[in-house]
């Protein structure tokens, strides 16, 4: 990745007065400085994760978390047997693929527009930031109202334009619901991708474009041969962030379509069993599987991404 701090520490070594005792003293104080944060993080992240994995082998209930028995892999066996779980896996993957690719394309278009020296680009940047600033629950509610099958403005507009013959049930129709969720997610998070892409575009040296213009290279060719390869590392970072976020999506789906099987994602499924059905053992098994799916995807990104990224990144 382009900017990991761990590859570039502020080196104080090599100066004449860096004697070993001083270095050791600094190392000790470094541990002291990092300790409070590490302790808190272990408490709120490490420990709960271990407990979740532990619970997944038990029959614990939410109402009585203290009393449980071990059931081995029973929860996992049940889980892999539940068609709704597999529906949740498919929904999550489809949602991730659709939303991340749409966000990448739209984000790139917006970034290119913002990077061109056009009139009103400040206004445009402010406008695209608005969806990003709106809380997810609020955006879900706003869209739910626009999607309303009887009073919604979207049906009103499409009916008025003659594009549809009768009102569509955007969030209830099994064929439309997931697409409706994707549209809201794209609306909400494209600004993030656009901002990262814009930051990368602004680092592309202007002389490159100048040289291409002098040589009479077609703009499309310039984009694919010069711009795109140079900003790919930054785009990869955006894709990684967005993919990890999309795989664990919860609030948007939950508020827009509740626990409907048409749109249920792995996070929604796990929460439903954990909280609504109070089945901590089974819900924890689903959560644990989701955790490992995400860990696997991260590992894939890092191993595949590193190889390609390193030369361009620096």
């Amino acid at each position, binding site marked *: 990745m*382009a*900017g990991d*701090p*761990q590859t*570039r*520490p*502020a*080196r*104080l070594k090599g100066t004449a007065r860096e004697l070993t005792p001083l270095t050791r003293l600094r*190392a000790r104080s470094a*541990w002291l*400085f*990092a300790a*409070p*944060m590490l302790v*808190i*993080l272990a408490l*709120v*992240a490490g*420990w*709960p*994760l271990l*407990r*979740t994995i532990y*619970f997944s082998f038990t029959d614990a209930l939410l109402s009585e978390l203290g009393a449980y028995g071990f059931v081995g892999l029973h929860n996992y066996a049940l889980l892999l047997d539940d068609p709704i779980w597999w529906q949740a896996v498919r929904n999550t993957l489809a949602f991730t693929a659709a939303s991340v690719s749409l966000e990448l394309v739209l984000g790139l*278009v917006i970034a290119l527009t913002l990077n061109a020296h056009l009139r009103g680009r400040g206004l445009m940047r402010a406008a695209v*930031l*608005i969806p990003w*600033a*709106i809380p997810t*629950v*609020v*955006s879900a*509610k*706003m869209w739910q109202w*626009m999607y309303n099958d*009887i*009073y919604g*403005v979207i049906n009103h507009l499409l009916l008025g334009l003659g594009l549809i013959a009768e009102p569509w049930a955007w969030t209830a129709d099994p064929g439309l619901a997931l697409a409706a969720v994707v549209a809201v997610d794209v*609306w909400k998070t494209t600004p993030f991708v656009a901002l*990262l892409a814009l*930051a990368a575009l602004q*680092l592309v040296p202007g002389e490159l474009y100048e040289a291409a213009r002098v040589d009479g290279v077609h703009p499309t060719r310039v984009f694919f041969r010069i711009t795109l390869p140079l900003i790919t590392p*930054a785009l990869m*970072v*955006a894709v990684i962030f967005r993919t*990890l976020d999309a795989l664990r999506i919860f*609030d948007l789906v*939950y*508020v827009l379509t509740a626990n409907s099987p048409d749109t249920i994602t*792995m*996070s929604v499924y*796990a*929460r439903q069993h954990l909280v609504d059905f109070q089945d901590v053992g089974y*819900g924890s098994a689903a*959560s*644990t599987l*989701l*955790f490992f799916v995400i*860990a696997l995807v991260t590992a894939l990104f890092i191993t595949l991404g590193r190889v390609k990224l390193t030369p361009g990144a620096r």
Partner: protein
Amino acid sequence: MGWRVRKWIGALGFYLLIALLLLYAVFPFYWAVVSSLQSGSALFTVEFIPRDPAWQNYVTVFQEQPFGRNILNSFAVSLATVAISLTLAVTAAYAFGRVEFRGRRPLLLSVLAVSMFPQVAVLSGMFELISALGLYNNLFGLTLSYLIMTLPFTVWVLTTFMRELPRELEEAAMVDGATPWQILTRIFLPLMGPALVSTGLLAFIVAWNEFLFALTFTLTSEMRTVPVAIALISGASAYELPWGNIMAASVTVTVPLVLLVLVFQRKIVAGLTAGAIKG
């Protein structure tokens, strides 16, 4: 067709695309504002500019549930989350960014790894922890749980900023016998202002928008934060959601956030891109 005409058509298409994108970005919020100003039956007829704007929804949303209290809760939790995250992260960032010690790299990577945790993967463990500490249905419990989302990126971004500070400053202070604590608080902290504002704003927005923990770890409507309160606004029946109230609540909590983002545009962009692009 001459190239002039072709160019003109190309430009027209381009501006049409921009107009469409702007409409897609801005219209949902505009529509929420319009709907929030319509009460009674006016809500159920489509008017793009309300003929008869009314503030009624903004009054009832505060009357029918403790919405004022919910806003205060969100503010308290978000501010506490920001304060604790920044305090913990800035000291840790000094260690990670300025000192080479054994285990630095694996530690920093594990901190980063936490940012990929799905919230639901820690839900049962966190519920147990919060209950054990007696913090269920309590704003302190929420603040504690939010640290899992804010600490990784505040540490990461602040480490990046800390690394960029000139080392001559630190060396000079060390010659004068300053302790690491003095170097951090007297020399680096004053220089970190912009970085702290950027990361603080991002942490505030993350905490303000959080939904799953707030939904699971609170019970009574007085303890709810804004996202949960809005999600749970209900009407006489499931089919009669009070859309006017919901939109009024949405606009009420979004306007300050939109203003904040517009005022601090540059700072937020700097914070968002610092961890990813710099270098």
